[in-house]
């Protein structure tokens, strides 16, 4: 990212693309960044990209920060920095698409980032355990950890143009009396984020391609996984202890997803699509289902 490498700064202008899943606060993060930049007297723009998905599925947002008026109204295709609120999004989307050489990547994850998943360009990588911080600071919405504030905190480590106190002020105004936990998470992430410089080979820039399609009748065919492998939406994994299970079928009938199957006289969870809502755990009369924090290898 220009500015990061403290090279010559001719055109002060940054484009940031945020990736995450619904419910994680991607759009809010984009807004907080823009509002904070604005408070620092920059021109700023925050664009949400709403897919048609619900909580849990991949979403995108874009933030532009500039010293000059911003005339673009389009999405960001060649970002200076990508913020990844959830590493699972990397499995369904090319989150690094168009990222500029020397750009920045902020990832919220508790595991190590292997080099293979990163693009072949030189970049500044910032890693923060957003979920861990959210759980520790009790930042939950509808039971899901909210990782947007930790990611902003981590981003601020490498983006000197917005002061953390400015962001604190923006968060306090935005969330009012509920802002305390967010502010704590912000500082915790800022302090614990790990910054790495990575040197890669230059690679050709890919452009977004549109699928060709001739539509005659707007009708769709039934398919399992219309929203992708929704198993990746999981933060917690339900696990059946078969020694306690009586096959009462309460988990089966109540699974909102239909991800519990009746097979040969027992219930089986389809982890490809189970979103990890844990309704099954709550309706099990024998406490035969427990939950584990999900770690995708």
């Amino acid at each position: 990212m220009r500015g990061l490498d403290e090279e010559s700064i001719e055109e002060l202008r940054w484009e940031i693309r945020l990736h995450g899943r619904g419910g994680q606060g991607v759009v809010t993060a984009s807004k907080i960044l823009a509002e904070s930049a604005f408070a620092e007297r920059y021109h700023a723009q925050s664009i949400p990209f709403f897919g048609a998905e619900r909580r849990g599925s991949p979403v995108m947002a874009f933030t532009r920060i500039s010293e000059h008026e911003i005339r673009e109204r389009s999405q960001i295709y060649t970002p200076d920095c990508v913020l990844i609120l959830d590493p699972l999004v990397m499995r369904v989307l090319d989150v690094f698409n168009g990222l500029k050489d020397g750009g920045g990547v902020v990832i919220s994850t508790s595991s190590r980032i292997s080099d293979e998943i990163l693009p072949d360009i030189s970049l500044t990588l910032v890693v923060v355990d957003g979920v861990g911080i959210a759980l520790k600071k009790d930042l939950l919405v509808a039971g899901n950890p909210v990782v947007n504030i930790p990611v902003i905190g981590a981003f601020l480590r490498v983006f000197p143009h917005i002061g953390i106190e400015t962001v604190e002020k923006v968060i306090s105004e935005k969330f009012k009396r509920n802002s305390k936990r967010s502010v704590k998470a912000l500082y915790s992430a800022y302090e614990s984020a790990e910054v790495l410089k990575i040197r890669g080979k230059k690679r050709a820039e890919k452009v977004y391609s549109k699928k060709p399609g001739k539509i005659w009748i707007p009708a769709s065919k039934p398919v399992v996984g219309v929203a992708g492998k929704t198993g990746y939406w999981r933060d917690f994994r339900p696990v059946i202890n078969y020694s306690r299970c009586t096959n009462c079928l309460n988990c089966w009938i109540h699974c909102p997803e239909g991800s519990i199957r009746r097979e040969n006289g027992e219930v089986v969870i389809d982890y490809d699509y189970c979103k990890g809502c844990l309704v099954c755990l709550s309706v099990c009369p024998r406490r035969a289902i427990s939950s584990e924090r999900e770690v995708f290898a």
Partner: protein
Amino acid sequence: MTEKLLTGNQAVAQAVKNSRVGVVSAYPITPSTPVVEEIAGMVESGEMNARLILVESEHSAMSACIGASLGGARAFTATSSHGLAYMHEMLHYAVNARTPVVMAVANRAIGPGWNIWADLSDSMSQRDTGWIQIYCESNQEIYDSIAMAYRVAEHEDVLLPAMVCYDGFVLSHTSMPVKLDDLSEFLDEYEAAWRVDFDNPSTHGNITPPDYFMDLRREVSRSHERALKIMDRVEREFFETFSRKTPLIAEHYRLDDADTAIVAAGAVSSEAKIAVDNLRRNGIKVGLFRIRCFRPFPVRHTIRALDGVEKIYVFDRSVSIGSEGQMFQEVKSAFYGLSSPPEIYGCVVGLGGRDVTSMVFEKTVMGEIEPGWIGEVIV
């Protein structure tokens, strides 16, 4: 084949029956109400084999027609004015849903200043919804147009809804002789493109993301382009079947050697023909280009028909407020970029049922009345 003295609305009802429509759904509004009354009578007596759904609003009437069309039945409704405006959302819906519903529109002004009389503003203001629009001059043309509209709308290269428009009262309540041809030779059974199929189910009309939506709209637009070709063919086949020349895209009236042309649509164009005859008697070389199909707009037909004409007067019985008459806009736009285009003038006449006589056309062509908003009823 029988010939009867029928009002425009009765002609519609007869055409709907003879087109073997399966589901009719409608809500009454003046001046199209008698269409549904006629159909209700025929359904009750068993003369017509259709399901009639008497809904609680025009929005629901169009919705029921869309449902019926998706279910595989030929569907029909009739409305006017506020009823058409109330349907607006579902007019768009019927287009993208690819449901070839046919609707009769007895054209009427939109209030307030409640006004039940003839004015094409109701259908003209729906011109961007993607419906095929056909305008009629006589009750015979109304009868023929309903059948022709189904032929075009249901064609596999088109699959779009169509409205057949005719001036309220001037045609809807005026009796004229109508030949009631047996339409079965001309119109086959409806074959729906999408089907309720329990063994091979599909979901109609779910979310279509940016990756696909523009292509979907592009297809709708292409279907409109194709519709003009199909209309040409349907016009010919209609003549071959019934030996009656009913234009579907446009009518050329004494245009061959004309240096001046009138462009009009709907009932007023019949008065324009009188004016053309009178002016011709006085040696003035004038003709009429009567637009039957306003959507898709026949750009090439217009240029070809008016090639060599020096002056064009376009008469709209409607207006796009803040701009001009809609037909005037289209005709001007058709000639854009051509070398030595004709002079084109626009006239707004007959709003809210103000009578339009042949004299208005004559005096305008003679230069005795300034084009623009022409309010006088000249007798």
